[in-house]
């Protein structure tokens, strides 16, 4: 009897042990995944703090002996186009975020709350169009923007992007559908017209959806490359997400005693990445919300 209990206990311990071992192996693996995700970012940040002497040592390392902000001073002060590109990116993101919010709010409200012939057809067309591959779309867009004299300008590009309303429209409609009807009904009984219903009732109650839209659009347009690169010719009009690629080319033309091309490039890359990282880390829950309320509800 006693041996039986002992052996049962042994099996039990073994089971627990192996389960915990599996758990530890899994956690270890996840830590490795996290390190791989972070390492390039950490490395570029570390390199951006190094000066010429330290960078061109025999082996690159993750340790900085003499951290310095000289590289950042250099790219922002000596390369006049870099601050300009940051301004362009802010302008682009600003127009696009505001434009998309306004357009999608006014468009989503009737689609969520009012009835009119063709309502569902409009919504479905817009949403399903997302899944049609756009062969030749970039060329046609180039021609169209050129024809409308919107090409090679940041406001023109921003206006073009304002037409890409699928995700914002979807999220805003979803948000409006989530507002209790009674609130709007009572406002309507009190004599509010449609515009007042939207601006005084629906909009204030859907700030969550708007934040989600704004964040996602900001992050996307801060980093968008192909369209901006194609539509804009003058490097002084590039947003930073495009212009950052020029730093590599400039590398051969600038040298100073303190900085090395290499460090200055890294400083540029990190400066370009930093706003997105800050926004993301501070407001991370909204991004996940954006994913689960947007694309996954289709």
């Amino acid at each position, binding site marked *: 009897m006693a041996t039986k209990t002992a052996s049962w206990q042994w099996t039990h311990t073994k089971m627990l042990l192996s389960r915990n071992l599996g758990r530890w192996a899994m956690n270890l693996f996840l830590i490795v995944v996290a390190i791989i995700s972070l390492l390039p970012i950490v490395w570029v940040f570390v390199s951006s703090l190094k000066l010429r002497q330290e960078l061109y040592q025999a082996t690159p390392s993750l340790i900085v002996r003499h951290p310095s902000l000289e590289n950042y001073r250099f790219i922002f002060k000596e390369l006049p186009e870099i601050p300009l590109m940051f301004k362009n990116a802010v302008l682009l993101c600003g127009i696009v975020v505001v434009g998309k919010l306004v357009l999608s709010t006014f468009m989503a409200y009737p689609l969520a709350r009012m009835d009119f012939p063709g309502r569902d057809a409009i919504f479905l067309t817009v949403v399903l169009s997302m899944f049609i591959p756009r062969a030749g779309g970039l060329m046609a867009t180039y021609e169209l923007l050129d024809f409308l004299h919107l090409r090679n300008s940041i406001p023109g590009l921003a206006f073009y992007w304002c037409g890409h309303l699928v995700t914002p429209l979807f999220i805003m409609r979803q948000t409006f559908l989530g507002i209790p*009807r009674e609130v709007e009904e009572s406002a309507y009984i009190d004599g509010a017209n449609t515009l007042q219903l939207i601006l005084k009732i629906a909009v204030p109650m859907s700030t969550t959806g708007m934040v989600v839209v704004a964040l996602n659009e900001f992050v996307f347009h801060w980093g968008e490359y192909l369209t901006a690169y194609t539509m804009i010719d003058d490097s002084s009009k590039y947003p930073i997400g495009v212009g950052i690629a020029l730093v590599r080319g400039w590398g051969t033309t600038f040298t100073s005693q303190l900085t090395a091309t290499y460090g200055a490039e890294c400083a540029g890359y990190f400066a370009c*990445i930093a706003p997105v990282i800050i926004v993301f880390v501070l407001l991370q829950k909204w991004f996940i919300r954006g994913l*689960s309320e947007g694309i996954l509800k289709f």
Partner: protein
Amino acid sequence: METLRRVRAERKLLGQGGRVGRARINWIAYLLVAPGFLIWMLFNIYPMLRGLVMAFQDYRFLYPETINPLHSFNGIDNFVEMFHDRMFGTSLIVSLKFTAMYLPLSIILPVVVASMVAQVRSERFASFLRVVIYLPAILPIAAAMLVWNKLFDPHFGYLNVLIGSIIGRKVNILWLGPDLALPSLVIASLWKGFGYNTLLFLIGIYGINQELYDAAAVDGCTGIKSWWYITIPLLKPIFTLILVLNAGILGVTEQAMILTNGGPGDRTLTTGLYLWRVAFLYGDMRMGYAAAVGLSLGIVSMVLSAIIFKLMRTERA
């Protein structure tokens, strides 16, 4: 009176206004929808259709007289030319190789990692992982690819040093050399795209009803078995979604443009990049031919995804 107003309010808001009551079209609704809808049509539907027409034109942007489809219509000449275009053939093989490496990994790795993150007990660790894994996905693509370009550098890059310190001797791998350039492109692209897919899977897994696992556990189905027979089948909508979202991967452009610029030689010249160069870089800006290349690429992607869907369906049936 109160009831009547209430009913009218409900009709207007819930959407009976135009039909049950007086036959009256709700102009305000159209007025509100119109601006968004028109600008959406202008910048989405028009380019889509125009792109289709372009593919059957000998359209060179720098020769304005070729804009009119009636004048420069050339039937299927663009498509015939593609068969003789060696550059197109080379680039298509590069794209297919890239897709064959990228697509399976960009689905398998995220589903495995997401399943593991869902198992993490500590909420703090799980939330840390979600942030860190998603981070690369939101970075500007140009900056991310340029950082990888630096990491891959054989002399000053960190990757060789890291591998050297792990295996204990110096390595000198030419990541962006002729042999490894394409796999390196896949690695960098995976790093960038991995977090997005992982988070999609993770949201899918969090949405699975825990009772299913409890019920299965009663029947002795736990651990890896429950993962294979419950989690994976229930994630099918996410698999489908990711495949749809990745349908354009055959046309991968930006990564190759920034990280390797198609090189060395044309080892990483994807069809997307080739198309871009034909339309915007080479000679006359041959947009007609480029649109035809794009259309063919779209058709190939659609056929490929149809095959994948078919395979998935038969496997689950």
